[in-house]
C-alpha cells in the first residue's frame, strides 16, 4: 500500500506540474522585474482581484518584514490594483482574464511562476489579506527565520490562518488605504480549532475559528480549512495541491512533530473581516469562482444579511506573537 500511495502522489504531482505548465499561456506580463531577484532573495507569490485598498499596507508590512520581491497574478482587476502594483520597483506582475476557478483558485498560475522564479528561494505564498507572524517577528526579520530554517534543514514552515474580526458590526469602522487592518479587526478566537490528519497528503486539516462557529453550525465539515504552509524553500519540483493547505512531495506537509514535541510555527493573521467584506462576498457569490461552488460565500451572504457580530465575550484581543505562543496557536519550537 505504501508503494502504490507513493506512486499515486508522484503521479498527482506530475499532473499538477503539467497543468501549471499549460496554464502559463493564460498569464500576460504587465511588469516583469524578476531579473532583479538576487540569489538569496525572499519572494512573495500572490493572486488578487480588486484589492487596491489593501495593497499599500500589504506591501509596507512585508517590505518591513524583509521580503525582497513580490510576484503577483492579477485576475482581471478593474479598480487600479494592476496599475498600482506595476509601478512598484520590487513587484513583478502578470495579468489574466481567465477563470480563477479553472486555474484551481490561482494555484496553477502560482505553481508555474514559482517553478520559474522561486527555485532555490524562500517563497511566501499569501493572499493580500494574510499577514505572516512568527516567533520573534517583532525583533527578528524574516531572514533570521529562513536562515535558521536553512541551518536546521527545514524546508517548509507552517502558519495557520487566524481569522481576525472587529468588535461590533463589520460596517461600523471603515477601512482606509494604508491603515493597519488590525487596528479595526483586532480580535480572534483562541481555542476552538479542531484537527484531523490527512493520511494521503500527510498534512493536518484544521478547522474552526469564528467562521466555523458563525457560518457552519449546520455543516461543520464544510467549514474552511485553516491549516497553511505558506513559507517554503522552493524547488521547481514542488507543487501546491490546494491553495497553500498542502504540497507535494508529501514530506513538505509534515510541519508538525508526531512524538510529543513541538516544531516552530507561525500564524497568518487574516484581515478578511472588514467593512469591505460584504461587498466582496456579494461579488464573489455572483462570479461563482470559489471553492465548492462558492458554498462558503453563500453561507456568508446568508448570515451577513442579519449583520451579525462576530465578536463574543471569549474573543481575545491581539497583542503580539508571544500571546499566540502562550495560547498554543503557534510555537517557538527550539528556536530561542
Amino acid at each position, binding site marked *: 500500500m505504501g508503494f502504490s500511495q507513493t506512486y499515486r502522489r508522484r503521479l498527482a504531482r506530475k499532473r499538477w506540474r503539467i497543468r501549471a505548465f499549460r496554464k502559463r499561456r493564460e498569464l500576460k506580463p504587465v511588469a516583469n522585474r524578476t531579473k532583479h531577484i538576487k540569489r538569496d532573495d525572499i519572494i512573495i507569490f500572490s493572486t488578487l482581484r480588486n484589492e487596491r485598498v489593501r495593497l499599500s499596507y500589504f506591501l509596507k508590512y512585508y517590505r518591513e518584514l524583509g521580503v525582497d520581491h513580490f510576484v503577483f497574478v492579477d485576475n482581471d482587476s478593474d479598480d487600479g490594483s494592476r496599475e498600482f502594483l506595476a509601478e512598484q520597483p520590487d513587484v513583478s506582475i502578470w495579468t489574466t482574464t481567465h477563470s480563477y476557478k479553472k486555474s484551481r483558485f490561482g494555484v496553477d498560475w502560482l505553481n508555474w511562476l514559482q517553478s520559474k522564479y522561486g527555485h532555490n528561494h524562500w517563497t511566501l505564498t499569501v493572499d493580500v489579506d494574510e499577514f505572516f507572524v512568527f516567533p*520573534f517577528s517583532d*525583533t*527578528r*526579520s524574516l*531572514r*533570521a527565520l529562513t*536562515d*535558521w530554517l536553512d*541551518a*536546521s*534543514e527545514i524546508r517548509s514552515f*507552517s*502558519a*495557520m490562518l487566524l481569522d481576525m474580526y472587529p468588535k461590533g458590526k463589520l460596517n461600523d469602522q471603515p477601512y482606509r488605504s494604508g491603515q493597519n487592518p488590525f487596528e479595526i479587526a483586532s480580535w480572534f*478566537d*483562541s*481555542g*476552538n*480549532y*479542531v*484537527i*484531523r*490528519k490527512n493520511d494521503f497528503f500527510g498534512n*493536518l486539516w*484544521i*478547522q474552526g*475559528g*469564528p467562521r*466555523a*462557529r458563525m457560518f*457552519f*453550525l*449546520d*455543516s*461543520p*465539515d464544510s467549514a474552511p480549512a485553516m491549516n497553511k504552509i505558506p513559507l517554503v524553500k522552493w524547488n521547481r519540483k514542488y507543487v501546491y495541491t490546494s491553495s497553500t493547505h498542502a504540497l507535494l512531495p508529501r514530506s513538505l506537509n509534515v*510541519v*508538525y*512533530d*508526531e*512524538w*510529543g*514535541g*513541538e*516544531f*516552530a*510555527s507561525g500564524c497568518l493573521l487574516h484581515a478578511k473581516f472588514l467593512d469591505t467584506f460584504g461587498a466582496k462576498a456579494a461579488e464573489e457569490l455572483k462570479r461563482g469562482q470559489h471553492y465548492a461552488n462558492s458554498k462558503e460565500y453563500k453561507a456568508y451572504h446568508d448570515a451577513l444579511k442579519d449583520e451579525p457580530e462576530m465578536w*463574543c*465575550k*471569549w*474573543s481575545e484581543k491581539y497583542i503580539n506573537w508571544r500571546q499566540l505562543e502562550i495560547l*498554543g*496557536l*503557534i*510555537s*517557538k*519550537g*527550539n*528556536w*530561542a
Partner: protein
Amino acid sequence: MTVGVVMLVHNAFERAEQVARHWAAGGADIVIHVDQRVKAKAFKAFERALSDVPNLRFSKRHSCEWGTWSLVEASQTASELLLKTFPKVRHVYLASGSCLPLRPVQELIDYLAARPNVDFIESATTEDVPWAVGGLDRERFTLRFPFSWRKHRILFDGYVNLQRRLKVKRKVPKGLVPHLGSQWWCLTRKTLSTILEDPDRKEFETYFKRVWIPDEAYYQTLVRYYSSTIESRSLTLSKFDFQGKPHTFYDDHLQLLRRSDCFVARKIWPHANRLYDAFLTDAAGAMKRAEPNPGKIDRVFTKALDRRINGRAGLFMQSRYPRDGWEKGMSSAPYSVFQGYAELFEDFAPWLSKVTGAKVHGHLFSPDRVEYVDGQTSYHGGLTDSTALRDANAQSFLTNLIWNARGERQCFQFGPNDNQDINWFIAKDPNASISVITGAWAVPLFHSNLNFSVIRKMAAKLQQVESNYIDILKSPYAKGKIRITSIAEFVEAPMNPLQLIVDEIGPHKLTRITEAPKLVDLTGFGQFLQNLKNQGMHPHLMGDFPMSDTVQKNTRIVRKPYLVKK
C-alpha cells in the same frame, strides 16, 4: 606577552573583518584561516580588505567540512603560523568568523596574563558527557568514520552498523585517554607547541583522522596528555541544540549576552546589527557591564530544547500533533467526569462548585446542547454550545476545553444518553478522574411520565451503553482514576464517595463536608426496578437495590448519623 587569535572563517566576511579588526585594535595577533571552498574572488576581496592590519596573517587554506579532520588541520596550520610569526604570543584563542567578543580584548589579555600556565579547554571523558549526536559516544573512538554524516548519511550509518556487527575495535594510541569537549579552546604556547611538535604527531593524526568529529576530540585528548594545568571549560559561550548545531544569537539576546561572563560568544547571526554595534566598541565606549548571570542563558536554551522535545502536554496544534500514545499527557490538566451524580442529587453541580470552587458543567456531551456551567452558551476560547461542532471532533472539543481553561479545574457530567465518542479517550487519560454510579440513569426514567413500554425499551438501551462504557473503564488500557459504585451501594453510604471527590478536587486538603447535596426522592425505586424485571428486562447495573423504601427519604443527608452510629 599577548594573545593570539586563530580565526576560522567560511562566510559572512564583512562581519569577520569587523571582528578581526576589533581583536587587532585590542592588541591581539591574528591568523585567519579561510575555507578553501570559498570562491577565489570573495577570498581576494576579504584579504585585500584586511591588508592594512599589521599584526594579521592569512594561513594556507584547507577545504573544511563539518565533523571532519579538515577542521583540525585548518586550526593546526593556522596555529603553527601564529606561533612562528608572533613570538610574543603566550595564549592562542581558537575562534570562528561568527564569534563575537563580549568583553574588551584587554580584559581577556589581563585575565590570561594572570593565568600564564593555564589551558582553557573543555575536556571530559566519554562516560561523562551527555551530548552525542547519533548515539555515538565511546564508539567515536573505536570505529572508523570515512563517510560524511551530512552528505552520505546512509553510507555512514551502514558502515557503523557493519563495524558493529564485525565487532571492529580500533586501538587507541598508547597513553591516550579519549576526551571530548567544545572545539573552541584557548591554549598556552607551551601546550600547543608540544602538541604540534610532538614526534608522535603523525601516529596520533592517523588515528584521529578516522575518529568521529575529531575537532571535538583531538586537542581535548592530547591536552590531557601534555598539559600541566587544565581548566576544563571553554571561554567561548556556545550552546548546542538537539541536532548538535550551535544556537544562534540575535539582537534580542543583547541583555542575555551582557549577563554572560564568557569572553566570546558564538554563533552570532551576521545581520544582528545591534549586537555587533554594542560589543565591538573600545573599552571606553563599552556599555556598563551587568551583573553576570550565565545561568539565565542556560535556562533559555534548556527551555527551548524541552519545548522541541516534550512540547506542552495536552496541546494539539498545527505543529504538535502526537501519534497515539506519544502525547506525553493526553490533556493539559486534571479534570473530573461524573456519571449518575446529577441524576441522583437534585443540586449536585452547584453543590460541588460551592464546596470545591471548581467549574462544574452539566452534560457537555448531551445530544441537545453543550451544557456549560451556569447555563452559558459559549465558553473559553470561543467554544460554542453547538452539538454539531462538538461532535465533528469530540476529542478536539474536550482537549480544547481543558487547554483553554488552564488553571481552573473542570468537571462535567456524563451518561449513557450522551455522545459516547469520547469514552475511550477519557478512560485512557491519566488526567481524568471518573466517578460512576452505575444504574443511576434509571432514576430519571423512574420519575418520568412515559409509558412503561417506552421506559422498558429505553432502559434496555441505556443499560447497554453504560455497560459498554464500564467495560472500557475496566479494560487494561484505562489509565484514569476510576471509581465505580452501583446505585444500591452508593445510597447506602453516600458521604464517603462524596468526601473522596471533594478531597481530590478541593483546593485545601481535609475539608470535611458539612453540607451534602440533596438526594432525589427514591421512594418506590426498588419497586420500579422490580417492574422492569417483571417485564423481562434485567437491570444488572444497579446492584442489590432494596425493595423496601427504608433507605431513602427525600431529605438532605446530614453527616452525623453515619458518624455517631455505634
